[in-house]
C-alpha cells in the first residue's frame, strides 16, 4: 500500500510532529508510514484522512500485490 501522507502534509504545511499530535500517535509512526514501513490500522487511516479533509482512498492507495 502506498500513501500520500508526505504530500498532503506538505500541502497543509504540517510537520511530522504536528500531524502526529493531531492524530495522537508518536512521530515515529508517521515517519514509518511515510517510509512505507508501516501500514496503519483502519482507525488511524480514517483519522489521518479527517485531518487532511479527504476520503481515505485519496491518501492510501492499494498497490499491485496487495
Amino acid at each position, binding site marked *: 500500500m502506498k500513501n500520500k501522507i508526505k504530500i498532503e502534509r506538505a500541502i497543509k504545511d504540517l510537520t*511530522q510532529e504536528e500531524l502526529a499530535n493531531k492524530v495522537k*500517535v*508518536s512521530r*515515529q509512526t508517521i515517519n514509518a508510514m511515510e517510509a512505507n514501513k508501516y501500514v*496503519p490500522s483502519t482507525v488511524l487511516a480514517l483519522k489521518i484522512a479527517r485531518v487532511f479533509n479527504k476520503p481515505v482512498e485519496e491518501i492510501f492507495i492499494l498497490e499491485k500485490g496487495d
Partner: protein
Amino acid sequence: MSSNLLLPNKYKRIGWSILIPAIILGIISIITDFESFPVKTKVFALINGAFPEKNQYFTFINTNITITVIGILFIIGALLVGFSKEEKEDEFIAKLRLSSMLWAVIVNYILLLLSFIFVYGDAFLQVMLYNLFTVMIIFIARFNYILYRSSKSVYDEK
C-alpha cells in the same frame, strides 16, 4: 500487545537505572570469575544442589550470593525497561514491540542451537548462564534500535 500489560512510562527510567549497573556488575563478575566482590551470607534454599552429594531441601546455607543479586537486578531492570510504555505508546510501537519479541526469541534459539552444536563441557554451562539473559537483551536492543532508527530518518522534516 495489549497495552494494559505494560507499566507506565516512568518505570522505564527506573528500569534503566537498575539494568545498566546490573549489566556492568555482571560483566565484571564474569571476567573475574565471580570473586571480585563476594557477598557471603546465610540464605534460605528451597533446593541446594551440592553435587556430588545429594540435593538438600528447605535448608539454610552459607553461600556467595553475587550471582543471585546481579541476576535479580538484571531481571527486574530488564522487565521494567522492556515492558514499560513509551512516552507515546501507539499501534506502531505495539507492533514493533511484538515483532522485536518474536525476533529476540528466534535469534536467541538460533544462538543456543549453535552453542549446542559447537560448545561442549564446562563451557556449555557458561553458555546456559548467558542464555538466561539473552532473550531480554536482544529484545531490548532490537526494539530500541528500530525505534531510534525510525525517529532518526526524518529526511524531510522542515
